[in-house]
């Protein structure tokens, strides 16, 4: 009986560790690219260059240096005037309905492409901690 309990505990612990194990960064970036192509590319374009006057660039973007603000924009949407790389924008980006893991993935992708650099790995927990 005791050994059965031990066995069950071990199994459940192993299973939870397996299920909740953090996704490797490389995989997160790969998944993030897929999200980008599905949800972002129509406005922000294939190289993150955006559309002058309408949609701000993600390439070499100073806006992305504030990671919390960037996650907030993806998670809850963004409207009203903003300034990106010295230029003014005033459009609406509605929430795309991405889940927290997907937001982490797309952030990891964007933050490591088109001239953006970071040491920070965006996790699901990080996205979860950003509140309205």
């Amino acid at each position, binding site marked *: 009986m005791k050994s059965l309990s031990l066995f069950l505990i071990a199994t459940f612990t192993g299973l939870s560790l397996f299920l909740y194990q953090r996704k490797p960064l490389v995989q997160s970036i790969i998944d993030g690219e897929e999200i980008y192509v*599905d*949800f972002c*590319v*129509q406005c922000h*374009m*294939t190289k993150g260059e955006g559309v002058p006057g309408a949609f701000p660039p993600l390439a070499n973007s100073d806006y992305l240096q504030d990671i919390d603000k960037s996650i907030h924009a993806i998670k809850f949407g963004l*409207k009203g005037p903003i300034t990106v790389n010295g230029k003014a924008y005033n*459009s*609406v980006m*509605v*929430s*795309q*309905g991405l889940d927290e893991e997907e937001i982490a993935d797309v952030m990891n992708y964007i933050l490591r492409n088109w001239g953006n650099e970071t040491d920070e790995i965006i996790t699901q927990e990080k996205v979860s901690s950003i509140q309205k």
Partner: protein
Amino acid sequence: MKTIQHFLLSISILTLIACDAQDHGPTISLPKTVDYSYEIVADSIDIPWGLSILSSTDFLVTEKAGTLYHVVEGVKTAVKGLPPVYVRGQGGLLDVAHSPDYAKDGLIYFTTSSPLGEEKGGHTALYSAKLENDSLVDTTLLYKGDFNTKKGQHWGSRIAFDSEGHVFFSIGDRGNREVNPQDITRDGGKIYRLNRDGSIPKDNPFTTTENSRKAIYSYGHRNPQGMITHPETGEIWVHEHGPRGGDEINVIKAGKNYGWPLITYGINYSGTPITDITAKDGLEQPLYYWVPSIAPSGMAFSTSGIYPKWKDNLFVGSLRFEYLERLELKNNTVVKREKVLDSIGRVRNVEQGPDGYLYLGVEGKGILKIIPKSY
């Protein structure tokens, strides 16, 4: 000699290609005089996707994020009792329209991205319902596309009625162009026709085709977000978003294949080709196509005398270039294109009201009514 033949052949092919690229209608112009203005009849709506005009002071407006507004004399009330809305990418609460016999049957029809079903994700659904004290009652699911997918793109979906008791609606290719649009055993990339109670008309084109989706009326579409019954011929006219270039106006005929992605006048967003042909036997050609894409949404004919210069013209919203496009047609050919309300914002929808006025859904603004100045 052979070299000369080759040379001549190349020249004629090049000429054909050049004609192809240019010979698709007039370039767009600005009006010489602007003898109209607008007023806002419902304000502060981020994405006013669908609009049903019950009277000049009574509208139903869908907000994509998942709210159905009943707007009476400019006052918005959120309607209660909506079925589940799956807000994802381009999806959410989509079109709304009222029955041609609304005075008798009181029925409204609406489309939404729906999470119903076994698989994760969602697909486009069509419902009918009645409005009672700003709540939906008798809500009936008439059609739900499957299989669900977590893709965010191409849900369609506009609604139109003919005079023979049918309701038409569209579902886009759901981000799977290699599989859905050309396969009539699957949903997506189709125009559908149902009886207004949701049953399948006996004379639908694929009712006797094995494993087919019986509600399909035409196929080979990418993402149709404009649909109108032609006021004179009664035909269903549709426009659809192309990829980069190649937005199209199509006149819908039963059982026909409109060619996506086998033929297109557009290319991938990345600039790479999708196919090198724009025409093929057995595939329908558009009545008109836009290069570059204007990102068309919403479609209406002006049939009233309220704007005399615009009588019988076609109107299409442009999301990308933020104006309302006016198209003059002669014998089903576009002969003139003009920007109406240039830089107004992303025009999501256009409808002609029972009062004969044109109403626009403009993102971030709400519902606008075009007022002629000189009358």
